[in-house]
C-alpha cells in the first residue's frame, strides 16, 4: 500500500481520509471551512484512487490552497490591510513557510482557472479524467469476466456467443460470451500506464539532452543532434515492429523504455531550440547581469517559459506511445495479456468479429475508447498553455 496504485482500494480510502484531516484542520483553524472540506474531499479521493503516493502530494496541494485563502501577506504593502508604516518586513521561519505555501496555493488556483478557461481544453481534461476514473474506480462496480461463458447462448441454435448491446450487457458480449463492458473498464489500465511511463521517460531524456546540447554546444551538441536526426529519419513503426520481432519483452516497463527510446528526438530538438532562444532573451540577460545566480536564472527565468511547451510535448509523447503500443498489439507483436483494448481488437480480427454484424461491438467499443482517449489528449494540450504559461495566467 506504500506506493502509487492505479486501482481503488479500501486501504487507500483510509489513507486518503487520514491525509484529508490536514487540510480540513487547517481550514477549521483559519475559519475557511468550505476550502478545508474541499481539501478533505480531494485528499480522500486521490488517496482512495492512488494509495499513499496519491494522497501525499494532495495533502501539500490542498493545504496550500487552503492557506492561500486564509493567509494575508503582511509583508506586501498592496495586499496587507495594515498601513505602510505598520507593515512588518521581518518574519519568523514559520511565517516564511506559510507565505511560500500560500503563494504555491495561489499558483494552483490560477492554474485551475487556466484549466477551465479554454473550453476545448477543459473538455479534453474531462475526457482524460473520465478514462482515469473508469479505470481506477470501475473495478469497484463492474466485475471482470475472464473465462468463457457458454451459458449465455441466446438460443440453442445460435452458432456464436456474440451479442449486440442489451440492458443486461450495455456493450454486448464478445466471442466467448463475456461482457465487453468489463473488458473496456479493465483494459485501459495497462495501456494508459505504459504510455504514460513511455511519455515520462521520453520527456525526461529529451529535456536533459536538449538543454545539454544547447548549453554545452560544440561537440556534444553535434553528436546529440546527429543522433536525434538519425532516429527521426527512420520510420518509427516499422522499426518498432522489427525490434519487437527480435526482442522478447519480459515486462511492460521494458516496452515503455523501447517506446521512449524512439520518441525522444522530436522534443529534444524543440527543447534545444527553445533553450538557445531563451538564452538570448533580454530578461535572461538582465538576470545574468544582475548576478541573480544560476539557480534563480534556471528556476525563475528559463524554466517557467518552457514548462507549457514541455507539458504539451509530454502529452504528444504519451499519444505517440499509445499509438505505437496499440499498433503493435493489433499486429500481435507484443505478448500483452487480457484485459487490454488492443488485445480486444486483435481478438476481434482473428475471431472474425469484423465481418459479423452482430459482433460489431467487440471491435467498435475498444476502437472508440482509444480514439476518444487520444482525442481528449489532443484537446487537453490547448489548456496546458493557459495553465503553465505565467503570462497567460490571470491574477487572483
Amino acid at each position: 500500500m506504500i506506493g502509487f496504485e492505479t486501482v481503488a482500494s479500501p486501504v487507500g480510502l483510509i489513507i486518503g481520509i487520514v491525509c484529508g484531516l490536514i487540510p480540513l484542520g487547517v481550514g477549521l483553524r483559519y475559519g475557511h471551512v468550505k476550502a478545508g472540506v474541499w481539501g478533505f474531499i480531494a485528499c480522500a479521493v486521490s488517496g482512495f484512487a492512488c494509495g499513499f503516493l496519491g494522497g501525499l502530494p494532495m495533502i501539500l496541494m490542498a493545504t496550500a490552497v487552503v492557506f492561500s485563502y486564509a493567509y494575508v501577506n503582511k509583508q506586501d504593502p498592496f495586499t496587507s490591510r495594515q498601513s505602510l508604516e505598520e507593515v512588518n518586513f521581518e518574519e519568523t521561519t514559520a511565517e516564511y513557510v506559510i507565505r511560500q505555501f500560500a503563494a504555491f496555493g495561489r499558483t494552483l488556483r490560477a492554474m485551475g482557472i487556466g484549466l477551465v478557461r479554454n473550453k476545448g481544453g477543459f473538455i479534453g481534461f474531462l475526457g482524460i479524467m473520465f478514462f482515469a476514473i473508469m479505470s481506477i474506480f470501475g473495478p469497484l462496480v463492474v466485475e471482470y469476466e475472464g473465462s468463457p461463458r457458454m451459458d449465455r447462448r441466446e438460443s440453442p441454435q445460435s452458432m456464436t456467443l456474440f451479442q449486440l448491446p442489451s440492458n443486461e450487457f450495455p456493450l454486448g458480449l464478445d466471442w466467448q460470451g463475456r461482457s465487453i463492458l468489463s473488458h473496456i473498464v479493465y483494459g485501459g489500465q495497462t495501456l494508459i500506464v505504459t504510455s504514460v511511463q513511455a511519455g515520462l521517460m521520453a520527456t525526461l531524456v529529451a529535456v536533459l539532452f536538449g538543454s545539454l546540447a544547447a548549453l554545452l554546444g560544440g561537440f556534444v551538441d553535434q553528436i546529440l543532434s546527429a543522433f536525434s536526426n538519425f532516429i527521426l529519419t527512420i520510420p518509427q513503426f516499422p522499426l518498432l515492429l522489427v525490434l519487437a520481432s527480435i526482442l522478447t519483452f519480459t515486462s511492460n516497463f521494458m516496452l515503455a523504455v523501447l517506446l521512449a527510446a524512439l520518441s525522444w528526438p522530436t522534443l529534444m530538438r524543440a527543447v534545444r531550440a527553445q533553450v538557445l532562444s531563451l538564452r538570448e532573451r533580454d530578461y535572461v540577460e538582465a538576470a545574468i547581469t544582475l548576478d541573480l545566480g544560476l539557480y534563480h536564472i534556471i528556476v525563475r527565468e528559463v524554466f517557467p517559459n518552457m514548462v507549457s511547451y514541455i507539458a504539451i510535448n509530454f502529452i504528444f509523447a504519451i499519444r505517440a506511445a499509445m499509438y505505437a503500443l496499440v499498433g503493435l498489439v493489433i499486429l500481435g507483436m507484443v505478448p500483452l495479456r487480457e484485459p487490454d483494448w488492443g488485445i480486444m481488437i486483435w481478438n476481434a480480427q482473428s475471431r472474425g468479429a469484423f465481418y459479423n454484424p452482430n459482433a460489431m461491438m467487440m471491435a467498435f467499443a475498444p476502437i472508440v475508447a482509444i480514439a476518444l482517449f487520444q482525442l481528449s489528449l489532443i484537446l487537453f494540450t490547448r489548456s496546458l498553455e493557459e495553465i503553465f504559461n505565467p503570462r497567460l495566467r490571470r491574477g487572483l
Partner: protein
Amino acid sequence: MDAIAAGDAISDEKPVSKNTKNFTKSYTFRVILQGIITIWAATTFTFFLVRLLPGNPVSIRIDQLMQQGYTIEEARNQAATLFDFNPDEPMLQQYSTYMVNLVQGNLGTSITSAGTPVRDQILRFLPWTLISVGSALLISFSVGILLGIMIAYWRGGVLDNVITALASILSGIPDYVYAILIILIAGVQLQWFNVGEMRGGVTQGIPAGFTVEYISSVIKHALLPVITYLLATVGVWILSMKSSTISVLGEDYINVAKARGLSEGRILTAYVGRNAMLPLVTRLAISIGFVLSGSVIVERFFEYPGLGLQLARAVGARDYTTMQGIFLVITIGVIVSNILADLVMGWLDPRVSLEDN
C-alpha cells in the same frame, strides 16, 4: 561553422559574382552528402540489428535448423545461404559483402517462401504502396492547403470555426481507427460496399494493362486505404497551412501588394499561398514516413497488397530476410524523400540554401 569558414575561404579567393553559385552547389552537395551518410548509417544499423542483437535472427535460424536434425555445420551453411553471408568470415568482411550485395540490389532470399528473392517480392508489392500512399498524400496535401488558405483568409467566420474544429478532431485520431471504423460501419453495418470484394490490389482475373477495366479496378481497391490516409492526414495540413498563412498575412509585402491595388486572387495565390506553403514542403517528406508507418496496420485491415502488409506478414512469420529488405526499402525511401524535400526547399526558397545550420 564549417560552411561559414568555407564561405570565407571562397570569398577570399574568388570574386563575389561566383559566390552565390558556389553556395547553391555546396548546399545541394551538403544535402545529398548528409542523405548518403544517413542511408549508410541506417543500413549499417540494420546489419547489426539482424546479426548482433541477443536472440538475433541468424542464430535463431541456426537453432531452428539444428532442432530439425541438421548438424551445426549444415545449419550454419543453410542460414548463410538464406541471409547471403559466410559465417566463417570475420564480421568486418561479412559487413563489406552485405554492403556490396546491397548496392547491387541483392537482398537475400525469403525464409518462409523459399527460393523467392526478397528483391522480387519488394518489386511486386512496392507499386501498390506507392499508388495508395502517394495519391493519398497528394490529395490531402492539396485539399489541406486550399482549405487552410481559405479559412486563414476569412478567419473568424463560420467556415473557419467549423473546419478548424473538424480538422483538430480528425488529426487527433490514429489512422488505424479510421480503417476499422470504415470496415465496421460503412462496410458491415451500412453495407455501402462489400468488404470481401475490396480486398487485394485489383479484382482477380482482370488482365493487367492500360484498359479502363483494369485502372478502374485499381482505383476502386485503393479507395479505402486512400480515404483512411486522407482522413488521418488532412487535418494536420489544414491546421498548419492556416497558421502558416496567418503569419504570412502579417508580413509587410502583403500590405504593399494590397496598396498596389493587386487583385485579391493574385495576392492569395502569388504572394500569400506560395510563401505560406514553404514550411509545409519539408513536412511533406516527414509525413511520408508517418503514412508509411501507418500503412503497415492499415494495409493489414484492408488486405491491401502493399509493402506494409508484407512487412507485417514477414514480422509475424519471423521471415527476417524479407523483413530486413522491406525495412531497408522503406527507410531509404523516407531518407530520399527528405533529401528531395530539402533540395526543393532550397530551390523554392533561396534563403534556405544560404543559411547555415
